[in-house]
């Protein structure tokens, strides 16, 4: 540590730097330490440091009391970043303590141009290994693609979304990285608007546990730089595509940056911060950061030299095949495995399929893919298993399979072949399918064979095939929202209402009828009597009797609610209420009933006198009965 000091009585001041040799872009810490000051310390004054960008890091004060003796120590800290090479002087400094001026001489440092062997060449994979955050002073140059395109000195925080190549073949991976540059204290909060990647298959790289943070000098300002997200894009079609990388979401802390003086109030017990000084005036708010669009040219795979077995695989692969047994009994299953391994978009790689082999029943294959995303490369393996069951004995060969892929770095197709597998199939316990079965087997045409049943289980779950028959009625929407349905229901309800009312009325009609009969009984009887009288006048005695009978019986029937033929004198007597003096009227009723019976059925001389008597009797009986009360 280089230091220079000035001592005045108990007060001493020294300036010290953390390193005296550094390279362009690196930084050093400058401390101006005042010991045993008495009186107010004003901030050190100095002319701008030639060849450096400088920032204040604050001011700290320590007071210790030892054996009754108080001693104080104040430290003013600055960060200086070298921006040009050569031998530099830092200082001299003027410090005013309690009205007295103290001068501190300058410190010498040397700035070199070459960053030395510790820095990587631009364009290579960035980020040297080592402790991550807090690694101030390491020169980390992001690859040129990751640097901002235009002058961004007015921007506190911005994101550069960049791809590692401008051109790619279909299915060749393009890595898109999001690099945040910030001068403010910021927290990355994910994406407000996700990238639009139509035309690409995406594989996300898992986020690093401790994202590497480094610092970079851009346009004279110091930025903290970090890669926050990486995506592998696999193009699916040829053409020129524009990817909208989306908008990031961050929370930033903005401090009052107007004046370094604001850090030099003498009443604070300031604190030393590593990266950003704290201040009483900070504002925290969320800030979305847009990104510029990225254009990619996707080239179609060349037609020339494309093998017939090519099915779209791009990358670098190896292929291997195997069978789980070489000797098997007919009817026992054999599993044939094909494994494709390598770098590229293994999800879309199609492993070569087995064509039907005579003598084997081949079942559907199942595939599984295992993808790893280490070191920013999408790689892995894809395994396809097919079950074969030999039907008859003999020697069989599972043929070699061809698998081709396009190597984008060599810009050439490669074709790989798996090896053949020989299978020795022994005859099984079940008899082979009869080729020419004669009657030699003892005459029985059918021998039941023991058969081992297997569960019908799914090999792979997939959707069922389309319906080729156009079945079903065309769907025309919710029927209950149509006018027709509402009207129909309304009509039915109305109909039911009307019918119900009608039904109920029918039930009481029997009652009504009784009442109406009762009411009209006298009138009806009177009408009949009149008619009888007319017949009497004419001398039609038989008809007269009949009419009188009808009138009388009908009258009592109506009164009592019975039918005509059920009427008897006794019944009438029963129905008279207790109060009535029954004897008189009943006598007359009996009399007239008898007279009529005689008149109708008896052999009595019918003369005018007798008939007239009957008429008068009937009339009287009816008239008097009107006054009679019934139960």
């Amino acid at each position, binding site marked *: 540590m280089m230091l220079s000091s000035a001592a005045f009585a108990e007060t001493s001041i020294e300036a010290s730097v953390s390193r005296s040799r550094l390279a362009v872009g690196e930084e050093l810490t400058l401390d101006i330490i005042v010991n045993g000051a008495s009186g107010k310390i004003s901030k050190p004054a100095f002319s701008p440091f030639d060849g450096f960008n400088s920032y204040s890091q604050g001011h700290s004060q320590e007071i210790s009391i030892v054996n009754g003796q108080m001693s104080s120590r104040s430290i003013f800290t600055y960060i200086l970043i070298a921006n040009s090479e050569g031998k530099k002087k830092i200082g001299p400094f003027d410090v005013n303590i309690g009205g007295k001026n103290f001068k501190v001489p300058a410190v010498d440092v040397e700035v070199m141009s070459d960053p030395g062997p510790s820095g990587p060449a631009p364009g290579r994979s960035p980020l040297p290994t080592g402790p991550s955050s807090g690694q101030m002073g390491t020169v980390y140059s992001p690859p040129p693609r990751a640097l901002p395109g235009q002058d961004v000195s007015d921007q506190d925080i911005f994101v550069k979304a960049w791809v590692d190549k401008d051109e790619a073949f279909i299915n060749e991976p393009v890595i898109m990285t999001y690099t945040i540059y910030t001068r403010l204290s910021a927290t990355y909060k994910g994406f*407000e608007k*996700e990238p639009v990647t139509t035309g690409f298959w995406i594989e996300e790289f898992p986020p690093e546990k401790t994202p590497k943070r480094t610092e970079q000098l851009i346009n004279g300002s110091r930025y903290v730089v970090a890669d926050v997200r990486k995506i592998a894009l696999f193009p699916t079609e040829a053409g020129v595509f524009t990817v909208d990388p989306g908008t990031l979401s961050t929370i930033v802390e903005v401090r009052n940056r107007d004046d370094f003086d604001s850090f030099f109030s003498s009443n604070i017990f300031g604190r030393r911060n590593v990266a950003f000084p704290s201040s009483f005036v900070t504002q925290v708010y969320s800030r979305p950061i847009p990104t510029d669009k990225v254009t990619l040219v996707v080239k179609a795979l060349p037609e020339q030299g494309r093998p017939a077995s090519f099915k779209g695989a791009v990358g670098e692969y190896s292929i291997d095949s195997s069978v789980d047994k070489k000797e098997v009994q007919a009817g026992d299953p054999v599993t044939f495995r094909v494994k494709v391994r390598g770098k590229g978009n293994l999800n879309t790689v199609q492993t070569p399929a087995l064509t039907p082999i005579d003598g084997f029943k081949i079942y559907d294959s199942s595939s599984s893919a295992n993808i790893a995303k280490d070191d920013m490369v999408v790689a892995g393996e894809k395994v396809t298993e097919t079950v074969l069951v030999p039907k008859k004995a003999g020697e069989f060969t599972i043929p070699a399979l061809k698998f081709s892929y396009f190597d984008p770095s060599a810009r050439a197709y490669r074709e790989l072949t798996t090896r053949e597998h020989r299978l020795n199939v022994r005859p099984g316990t079940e008899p082979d399918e009869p080729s020419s079965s004669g009657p030699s087997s003892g005459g029985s045409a059918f021998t039941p064979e023991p058969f081992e049943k297997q569960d019908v289980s799914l090999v792979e*779950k*997939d*959707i*069922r*095939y*389309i*319906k*080729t*028959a*156009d*079945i*079903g*009625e*065309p*769907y*025309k929407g*919710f*029927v*209950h929202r149509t006018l027709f*349905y509402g009207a*129909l*229901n309304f009509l*039915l*309800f109305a*109909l*039911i209402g009307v*019918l*119900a009312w*009608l*039904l109920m009325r*029918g039930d009481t009609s029997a009652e009504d009828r009784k009442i109406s009969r009762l009411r009209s009984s006298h009138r009806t009887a009177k009408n009949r009597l009149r008619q009888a009288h007319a017949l009497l006048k004419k001398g039609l005695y038989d008809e007269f009797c009949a009419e009188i009978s009808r009138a009388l019986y009908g009258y009592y029937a109506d009164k009592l609610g019975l039918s005509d033929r059920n009427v008897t004198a006794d019944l009438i007597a029963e129905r008279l209420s207790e109060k009535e003096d029954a004897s008189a009227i009943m006598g007359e009723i009996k009399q007239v009933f008898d007279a009529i019976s005689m008149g109708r059925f008896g052999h009595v001389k019918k003369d005018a006198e007798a008939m007239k008597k009957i008429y008068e009797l009937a009339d009287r009986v009816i008239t008097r009965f009107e006054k009679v009360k019934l139960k």
Partner: protein
Amino acid sequence: MSPALSKPNEQLRKGGVRRFLVAMILFGTLASIAWADTPTRFIEANASYKGRDFKNAALAYEELAAAGHTTPALYYDLGNSYLRLGKKGKAIVAYERALRAAPRDPDVRWNLDVVKSGLPDRIEEPYGDLILMKVNEALAYVSVNEAAWAFTLSLGVIALLMGLALLAPGARAWTRGLISFAVLFAVFAAGVFAFEVWKEKDALAVLLDREVVVRYGPSENESKAFLLHEGAEARVTDSTDDWFFIRLANGHSGWVPKRACEIV
């Protein structure tokens, strides 16, 4: 020719002509019905699908749907085509439309199940009343329209029985019994119908975008509530010009842009 003979001949000729005309009309009607059954575009679409040209198959099926040929088989085939193209959201929309018209079709149910099991979002209904859940499951086998017609039919049966009771008073004893049954059935049908209508009162929406941010309010400036992915289904309970307010089966709700989803 004697007049007596000519008359029968004339009649025969006239009858023959008439019969021929009738036959022609019948044939024409039947033929048009038969041809209307399977439009040629449908057969073309099936051929495209078989040849793995899913893009053209989907286009053809969509054409037919736009022309009004909205049968369950068509929507099912459309769903298959979209799924083969990787468009899970649109596939689910198509399958749901097929299911609405044919709720018991085992193929539609199977395919819908396969798609949904491959979706990244897990949206589960909270454990509610077990009976209600069972009822809900059972009613999924009946479409709204079927419930509507069942109800109307039961009303018709009641009216018919009542009319019968009026016209044939002697049979009133057993017609009364039947009417009671019919009324009970009508009440039951009304219950099923009401339940189905209530379930369908809000439109069903399916998300089409790969990732959709659901917000607390209908604007890009509103804060984010949660994230959904392609294929997620929800009911729309409110809307503005450009946004839908959706409610998920697990109770969560929020606003999504209209262009990110499609209504079944």
